[in-house]
């Protein structure tokens, strides 16, 4: 049974065949049956009920004002603040924290009538590539529960892959939407930096973080993106430029487009199955009328170390506010210093501590020039290389991840985990839009095709991915029924 899309559910609602409350209840049921995979941290019951009622009113009283998301259930990552709903960023240190405000991205979806159902599991403070760094336990991949769903937005990818919700929200700092999308066989889109407001997103690395959607079809991804995108006066890094309408571009196909294949992305230790799947995808795009061209991004090997200076540096400051004084977890000790030390010592997990320490070191007096300043320079170089590539080609196509979903516990040393993101994190360093769409299987597990565009050419990226989906059925393939994984919504 093919899980239903936003478009299909919306049509059902308009025909009166179902109601927002019914859809939300069905999603909730499906999510509950996923419990063994542990993709959900909590349900938003009260808000779900309120939003479902609001959507129902809109559909009944002013259907002409109801957008495509009105009445559609969704789940969002545990780093997005929503008023009245506990938000913990997958961390013990924020346990019990209930934000008194709603962030812009989710707020815009609520305004569009979408109905939140659940908060999804993720790596602590979005730091990780396997969802094994969640303080509340790992998530299983719906394709094989013994394997990871990718990370850090693993829960959000898993619930869409399992068909429990038609779409979800994740965040992407170095690949945290695209890599789990790849591992779970769904579409996952990271918009251009500055296209979607970060207000209400619990920051990991402010200059890299972006919020984006997961869905089965690029069509649905585009709908959710359109509802969230655009300038927000509360986020000074959100772009004031008009959002290019996606609708007009989506159906234009790839005929005549020049697509670049970054040489460096095809040679770096790709698993054979991944290479085969991506090469067939490239061949298909060519068949659809695109011209393929090899391009070079020579600084790619420096991206990983650049990223692991800048992101930890920013997170070392961003996480300083978690001091146990005003919210979340607190360990009481007679002295203030001991309270800080114990609260943070017990509240943060090992990966978060590692990055806070790396970042603190990189910013320290005497090391700043050697690390942070140098990393910023390399970051500029990387962005310029992409700019030069985009002078020759309209978009880049390449694998999302060099590997498919790996078994839980396999990558216990941090470096091997960091290497999962070599093909995604340069895109964040350059602030570009990137999407992953399923393009085949390798040993029964999904492979992702990544499409990267120039800054603010989000619509073009979606157009290429949509054209690919128009000629393939990989995105319609649900994961094989796994024991306890439940059945998709019907």
């Amino acid at each position, binding site marked *: 049974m093919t899980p239903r899309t936003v478009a299909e559910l919306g049509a059902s609602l308009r025909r009166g065949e179902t109601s927002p409350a019914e859809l939300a209840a069905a999603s909730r049921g499906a999510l509950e049956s996923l419990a063994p995979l542990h993709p959900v941290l909590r349900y938003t019951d009260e808000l779900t009920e309120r939003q479902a009622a609001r959507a129902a009113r809109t559909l009944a009283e002013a259907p002409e004002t109801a957008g495509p998301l009105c009445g559609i259930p969704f789940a969002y990552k545990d*780093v*997005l*603040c929503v008023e009245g709903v506990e*938000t913990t*960023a997958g961390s013990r240190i*924020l346990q019990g*924290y209930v*934000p*008194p*405000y709603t*962030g812009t991205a989710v707020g815009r979806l609520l305004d569009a009538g979408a109905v939140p159902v659940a908060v999804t599991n993720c790596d602590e403070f979005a730091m990780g590539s396997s969802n094994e760094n969640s303080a509340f336990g790992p998530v299983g991949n719906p394709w094989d529960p013994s394997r990871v769903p990718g990370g850090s937005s693993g829960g959000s990818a898993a619930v869409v892959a399992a068909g429990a919700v038609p779409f979800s929200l994740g965040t992407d700092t170095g690949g945290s939407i695209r890599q789990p999308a790849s591992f779970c066989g769904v579409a996952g889109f990271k918009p251009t930096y500055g296209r979607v407001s*970060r*207000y*209400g*997103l*619990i*920051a990991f*690395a*402010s*200059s890299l973080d972006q919020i984006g959607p997961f869905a089965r079809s690029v069509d649905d991804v585009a709908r959710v993106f359109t509802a969230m995108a655009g300038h927000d*006066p*509360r*986020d*000074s*890094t959100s772009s004031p430029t008009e959002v290019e309408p996606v609708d007009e571009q989506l159906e234009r196909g790839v005929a005549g487009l020049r697509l670049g294949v970054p040489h460096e992305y095809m040679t770096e230790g790709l698993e054979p199955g991944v290479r085969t799947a991506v090469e067939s995808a490239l061949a298909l795009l060519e068949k659809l009328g695109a011209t393929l061209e090899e391009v070079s991004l020579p600084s790619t090997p420096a991206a990983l170390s650049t990223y692991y200076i800048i992101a930890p*540096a*920013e997170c*070392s*400051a961003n*996480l*300083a*506010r*978690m*001091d146990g*004084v*005003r*919210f979340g977890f607190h360990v009481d000790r007679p*002295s*203030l210093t001991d309270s*800080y030390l114990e609260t943070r010592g017990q509240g943060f997990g090992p990966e978060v501590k590692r990055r806070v320490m790396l970042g*603190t070191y990189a*910013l*320290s*007096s005497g090391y*700043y020039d050697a690390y*942070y300043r140098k990393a910023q320079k390399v970051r500029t170089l990387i962005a310029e290389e992409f700019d030069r590539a985009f002078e020759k080609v309209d978009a880049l196509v390449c694998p999302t991840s060099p590997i498919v979903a790996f078994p839980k516990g396999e990558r216990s040393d941090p470096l091997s985990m960091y290497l999962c993101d070599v093909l995604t994190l340069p895109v964040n360093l350059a602030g570009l839009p990137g999407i992953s769409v399923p393009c085949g299987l390798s040993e029964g597990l999904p492979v992702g095709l990544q499409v990267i565009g120039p800054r603010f050419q989000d619509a073009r990226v979606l157009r290429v991915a949509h054209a690919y989906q128009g000629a393939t059925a990989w995105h319609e393939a649900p994961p094989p029924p796994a024991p306890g994984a439940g059945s998709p919504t019907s």
Partner: protein
Amino acid sequence: MTTTSAVSTLEQILARYEPVIGLEVHGQLLTRSKMFCGCSADYIGSPPNSNTCPVCLGLPGVLPVINRVAVEYTVRTALALNCEIPEHSKFDRKNYFYPDLPKGYQISQWDMPLSLNGHLSFTVDGEEVRCGITRVHLEEDTGTLQHAGDILQQARSSVVDLNRAGVPLMEIVGEPDLRSSEQAREYLVRLRQILVYIGVNDGNLEQGSFRCDANISLRRPGETELGVKVEVKNMNSFRAVQRALDFEIVRQGRLLDQGQTIAQETRGWVEAKGATISQRSKEYAHDYRYFPEPDLPPLQLGVDFVERVRAGLPELPQQLIERLQRDHGLSPYDAAIISAEREDARAFEELVASGVPAKAAANWLMGEVARLSRESHTPVQRSGLGVAGLAALVKLVEGGSINGSTAKELLEELYLPGGDPAAVVRDRGLGQVSDQGELERLVDAVIAENPAAVADFRGGKEQALQRLVGGVMKATRGRADARAVTGLLRDRLSG
């Protein structure tokens, strides 16, 4: 070789060493809202933590938005202090843990401040002093703490109030160009005056909206290298700054005399002890790990913006002093006193505009009005009488309707409650007795009643005349025109 002693006085030390002083001033900006959110910047008097929002509380997920007016006020200040305004500027994060700093970092400016390379000139004891201004930059204020106990480290408990957190704070860093505590004091007086004049700061040292830290070191006269500097904090008045610096000069001088080295450290001024005490040594100095604030794009101030701010710059104290002399014929001394507070200068100009002669306006403002203003903590603008009432009163004197002493009494009486001086004079019959016939009759009576005084005066005792004038004043309950009475008496007695 000079004899040195552990008990050298300030004068003795100043004869052997030259103090080198640089001041850092923090001024809260008089904007309506805070630096990065919409909360009110006027936080005083609000219940604890009520003047806050998710942004200034530093809750997870929030982002700062720059207050444009705060940028404009900082640029205005920088221009008033002759600074350059670079085209590019940015905000940085200054990282440190303290319970009054909700984000764990302060958004400040590190290597690309809003302005650079200014100066402030003034005179001390007739000597021209030009103090360089390194930079004027913009940041956010912290919250406030109250401890059950003296300081955080020893407190039994502490409470945090974040009402002040995020209030726009401007830092004015001065070059180490000051050579005495008097110069330091005068620099602060002048700087405060400018900030108040241009409307960016209320200049309140006691409440801490205008705060000063000092760096001070000593060196032998003629040396070009700087000595080890000590940072002094916690000075809440101009007087405290001067006393703390003098204390440090003596403390450091005595240590140097004994051949000891000065520890680079931060010391706090303790008013009650009249001494500075060590707070933090260099080994425990913070590494603030500054880096560019990724939540805020770099600032690009256009030439147009800077020129618009420059064009809108109000008259500065020095310009006003010169104008008061030029346009109103005030002496340099009077002009300086009248312009010390912008409000006084404004009152002066209003008095003159309403027809009061400049000299009379200056004298009243510097004399009786200044006294009443000080004693009642109410400047004339906010008094019941107001500037208009004061003008009416002074004009009654100048027009000869009442005499000076009646005017002083009336001023005191009407200053706070207010009232129409002319009406009071009329109702109570306080009008000056200046009718020639009436005065002649009174003078003759007094001469007749005081033969001894008359004899004294005729014998050459000039003061005796005052006794006779006093007699007339007494007879008229102070309402007689004293000058006319004196003239009449002279005429009569020399005739």
